[in-house]
């Protein structure tokens, strides 16, 4: 009962002499000041610089970004890649998550740990691992050499990028979905079975809706992370342009602050929209986000 009652009355409660809960804005102040100084203000500056003229086109950064085809292409590439990675990640993670949540066997804990320990790898390491897997001297190349007498080198193309993004997205998604699968109410599935539903139907009608909040939240996070992923693409030195590389190029090679800033804002905005969409979809179903 306690201070919950004081909570809902902010203005009057603060007018009174200090209750125990009234200090909360002060305790949040250091964190919020830090955030304002080092995230909010810089972002505002980004927004502002995006308006200044681009070096080559002499138009504002934002105009340049939407009018020049190479930037639009870069945006499109990143968007499609992120969406594709998100979908495949969710699919794999859901299957693995359900499986691991329901089966108990020796070494399950170890398996889970092995699946999720790449969580801590920076993008550059992931890029390096992709090279190990699918580069010129990679496993794939050696296998294909011995089987088909030709070298399959995926690492430096779109597929390599895709593999890399998949690699760093899967661990987090698996962790979330294993947890969510464990919390599923089995009696719903049993009820469906008693009514004659096939396993396929049960999966689509009961399990997937039950996992919806977890799927949406980890999907949104996966999408946002893929949009902003830099290290992996940087290591793979891919010829295909993705937004983070384009931004980096504009900033470092051409000192084109306006465009770099404008692109950053666009990239952030798209990631943000993805998160908002996921949140809206979660609440639309009337369910609690996980």
């Amino acid at each position, binding site marked *: 009962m*306690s201070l919950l009652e004081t909570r*809902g009355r902010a203005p009057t409660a603060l007018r009174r002499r200090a209750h*125990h*809960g009234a*200090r*909360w*804005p002060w*305790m*949040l102040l*250091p*964190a*919020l000041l*830090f*955030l304002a100084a*080092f*995230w909010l*203000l*810089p972002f505002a*500056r*980004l927004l502002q610089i995006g308006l200044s003229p681009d070096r080559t086109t002499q138009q504002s950064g934002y105009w340049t970004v939407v009018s020049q085809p190479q930037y639009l292409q870069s945006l499109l590439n990143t968007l499609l890649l992120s969406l594709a990675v998100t979908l495949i990640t969710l699919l794999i993670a859901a*299957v*693995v998550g*359900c*499986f*691991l949540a329901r089966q108990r066997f020796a070494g399950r804990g170890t*398996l889970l740990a*092995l*699946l999720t*320990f*790449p969580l*801590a*790898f*920076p*993008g*550059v*390491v992931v890029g*390096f*691992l*992709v090279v*190990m*897997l699918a580069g010129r*001297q990679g*496993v794939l190349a050696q296998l294909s050499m011995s089987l088909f007498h030709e070298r399959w080198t995926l690492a430096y193309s779109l597929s390599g990028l895709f593999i890399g993004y998949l*690699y760093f997205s*899967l*661990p987090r998604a*698996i962790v979330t979905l294993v947890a969510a699968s464990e919390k599923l109410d089995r009696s719903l599935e049993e009820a469906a079975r008693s009514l004659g539903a096939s*396993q396929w139907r049960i999966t689509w009608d009961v399990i997937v809706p039950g996992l919806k909040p977890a799927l949406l939240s980890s999907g949104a996070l996966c999408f*946002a992370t893929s*949009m*902003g992923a830099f*290290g992996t693409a940087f290591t793979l030195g891919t010829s295909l342009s993705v937004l*983070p590389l384009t*931004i980096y190029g504009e900033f470092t090679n051409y000192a084109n*602050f306006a465009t770099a800033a404008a692109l*950053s804002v666009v*990239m*952030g905005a798209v*990631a943000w929209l993805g*998160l908002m969409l996921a949140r809206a979809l979660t609440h639309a179903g009337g369910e609690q986000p996980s």
Partner: protein
Amino acid sequence: MKRRALFCLQVGVTALTALFMIVPVVLSMLAGVTENYFIGLRSGLTLKWVDQVWALYADTFWLSLLIALCCLAITVAIGLPAAWGLLKAPPRWAARIEECLMLPVALPGLATALGIILLYGRFSGLRDSWLFILIGHVLFTLPFMVRPVLAVMQAIQLPRLEEAAASLGAGFWRRFFTVVVPNCRNGILAGAFMVITLSVGEFNITWMLHTPLTKTLPVGLADSYASMRLEVGSAYTLIFIVMILPLLLMLNACNHWLERQATRNALKELA
């Protein structure tokens, strides 16, 4: 039978995924101790690449460690009061503020770093020091300290404990340091491992903010991948993995422990 087929499918997918995750890591670790990667294991095992890495890049380890520990100190100093504030704030405010705290994590690190450079880059004293990198790390890791601490505060019903302490005469700060902080120990621990792990592995923000004199571990890794032989890059990766493995294991253990605590408390409430 349908169920059998489905089961096999699940096992297959899980097994493949596990292989996908592990095989490259194992390969890379092996390459780091192989005499010559192009010849393969037949060329013999050696530690010379590891030695070379240490000779070239030792300072990146120390810097990463330094930044991670400072990051931890700052996130605890700012994050603990913030978690308390979120506990007491009205639910709508708490939700919005938590979202704001998550912004540097959800939105691309590159954009964050770019903004910081464009705004603060002109202060050359700051720009050239490792503090510049530290700022980015704190922004990125703060919510990962606040969340577990807040979760623990809610689980132990902190407001009740504070009321009891107040009824015994303890003022605000006394309550904070004798009752609030000690009872959040487990949340702080879980948060600490998360913060250190994230800080050691952070690249997107750090790459933009670093200088040739302030290189962290991942920055060094990127360097070595670009300019050194495969074996050196692999050895460096090997050392990185060996460093990060214990952290991850501790993190895992902490989270398991926290979850068991939470279920035990929930059962006790019902009983």
